[in-house]
């Protein structure tokens, strides 16, 4: 108990929270762009699993992180093509299609893992933490915030970038328009299918990065590595009211509460008997926050509605 409130504990709690938040943030930011364009993707978790395995396997064989990065991103992109064809070209019902993608990703990543790897084997090279020059050496703050792996920096750098793209570019305006009123966008010559397809590609590629952040960050893969993380990421998009800053707050809240609970357990402050209750804390807190903070911001009006002219 006496150790808990020291600065160093706080530092490691925040640092761990940020590490835990990274895959959620990457996946949820990608999903934000997708949903802004009116496409719901419940298959995020499946895409993450495929990319997590793909990048893990490539690094396991080549011991080159760049190849792993490329593999993870390309797999995400390819799954984006698949999902785009299903939902945009064939105008399929998105909820069911997403679950299909999830099941496919879950089963196929498991199959590939067992055929190609079998036993969980730790990677010899993994994403290492990099201190940001200057900032990384600030006492405490540097350790907590500026000592992370590159994908974590990327995830947080993407927060303002996603906002910028959505609100300050022609593409972003088109994305918001096709998500709110695709008929209107269509009547002005904006290609609804094209914009949605690109938004899906971006979203799935970011889901791929999220999967990669998990497997390359941990240096290991095993079946169902994500444990449903992708579904939480979809929920975080609602939590964040389709804004990247809100999504970031949600991901950080989730990560930091999880790491705080771990610290409390480690130091015996949460008794063993209450341990399982403690494990629910992040989910419970997120739900409570969602209810309490619920802003009256509505979802994109055309979310999950296939568009066709007829």
């Amino acid at each position, binding site marked *: 108990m006496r150790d808990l409130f020291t600065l160093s504990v706080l530092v490691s709690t925040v640092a761990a929270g940020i590490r835990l938040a990274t*895959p959620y943030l990457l996946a949820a930011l990608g999903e934000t762009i997708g949903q802004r364009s009116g496409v719901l993707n419940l298959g995020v978790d499946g895409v993450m699993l495929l990319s997590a395995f793909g990048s893990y396997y490539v690094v396991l064989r080549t011991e080159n992180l760049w190849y792993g990065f490329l593999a993870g991103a390309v797999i995400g992109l390819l799954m984006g093509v698949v999902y785009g064809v*299903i939902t945009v070209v064939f*105008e399929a019902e998105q909820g069911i299609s997403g679950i299909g993608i999830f099941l496919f990703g879950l089963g196929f990543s498991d199959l590939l893992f067992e055929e190609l790897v079998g*036993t969980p084997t*730790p990677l010899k090279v993994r994403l290492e933490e990099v201190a940001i020059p200057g900032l990384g050496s600030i006492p405490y703050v540097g350790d907590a915030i500026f000592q992370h792996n590159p994908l974590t920096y990327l995830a947080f750098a993407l927060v303002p970038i996603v906002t910028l793209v959505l609100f300050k570019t022609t593409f972003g305006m088109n994305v918001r328009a096709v998500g709110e009123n695709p008929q209107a966008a269509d009547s002005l010559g904006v290609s609804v299918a094209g914009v949605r397809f690109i938004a899906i590609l971006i979203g799935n590629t970011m889901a791929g990065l999220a999967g990669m952040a998990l497997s390359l960050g941990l240096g290991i893969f095993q079946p169902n590595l994500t444990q449903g993380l992708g579904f939480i990421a979809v929920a975080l998009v609602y939590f964040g009211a389709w804004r990247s800053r809100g999504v970031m707050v949600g991901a950080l809240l989730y990560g930091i509460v999880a790491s705080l609970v771990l610290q409390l357990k*480690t130091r015996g402050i949460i008794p063993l008997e209450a341990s399982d209750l403690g494990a629910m804390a992040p989910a419970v807190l997120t739900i409570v926050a969602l209810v309490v903070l619920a802003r009256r911001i509505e979802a994109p009006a055309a979310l999950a509605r296939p568009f066709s002219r007829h």
Partner: protein
Amino acid sequence: MSKKVVLKLIGALAALVFIAAACGSDDAVDDAVDEVTDAGDDAVDAAGDAADAADDAVDDVTEEAEGAMEEEEEEEGDADDGDAMADAGGNMLTVECGETSSFPAASEPVTDLTVAIVAPSAEDDLAFTQSMVDAVTALGIEPQLTTSTFVVEEAAAAIRGYAEDGIDVVIAHGTQYGGSLEEIAPEFPETSFVWGTASETQGLDNVFAYTPAADQGGYVLGTVAAKLSEAGSIGMVGPIEAGDAALYVDGFVAGAEAEGASVNVTYTGSFGDVALATEAATAHVDAGSDILTGSAQHVVGAISVADANQVPWFGTQSNQVSLSPDLVVASQVYHWEVVLTDIFSAIEGGTLGGEVFELTLENEGLVIEFNGCFELDEEIKGGVGETIAGVVDGSISTGQ
């Protein structure tokens, strides 16, 4: 390709068919559902055919390869006998540096019974599922496998499927399958179901239960860890406070405390969340623990933390040396084959269930395997035999 691969491919394809079904418009949904149902039926038929074909192929290959294999295995077996130094009877040994497992080679099958295993995680998980698959294989039996059944309903379908196929012994390897067995077992009175880890048979007379006294090995490892720890503080990463994971934790804590060390226990609340287990282990190291241990398949993350921080690791369920060849001190390994042998002979004698079997140090169902690559002080190691003996004869209580 094995039958399992065929089945998984079909699973993946079914997911795609599912997606295709979603492509229909409102009006076409009914049609699509019909089509999917048909397609599903076809797929099942096809799967059966493919699986049969695959089985035949496997049999052929196996037969061809058997001659060669046997010779090799005999050699390996000889080598193992030399490598694995028996320290104190069959419940403790040291695996030579460079080897990863002490499992005896498959010899003559102990029984002609056909066996199937349904288990929740991957067969190579280095933990719960692998320990059972290894055990059955070690008895010379090639089991049919349905693994990675994350969903209980899926597992129930597999259990029922094997029973319908006329498999003699269906091993339902997961506490969570109890409810399904209660329903399925009475429908197949000719089939023997083996369920664990569980300490009762739910009153079903064609169900055997098995459970490891994981506290026993936990106690032994706890004493070793306490002697090894300079800080006197050990970090434990557990999944959920239940079953053999909890037994291991309790035994380990009792053993470590008996030697004057303290154990910080973190139950992550999950069996598979590697990221959370990683952070839990990191928190332990930050808090000053200089020894780590843990259970369930998510410990792969915790072991990597041990590896990165050069902190010794104690494992359970399977030998975990391959995850960190230098830092795994010892593992408590489950040898289900001990109880399985008893169960198979009971079945052959006409008893299909109704009994509970326990894995203990005494019946050598629990084995403490030391890693030859980790240089453990001989004095510490020397005391282990005594501790084991004490646990076996009851002079030492593990707290259970």
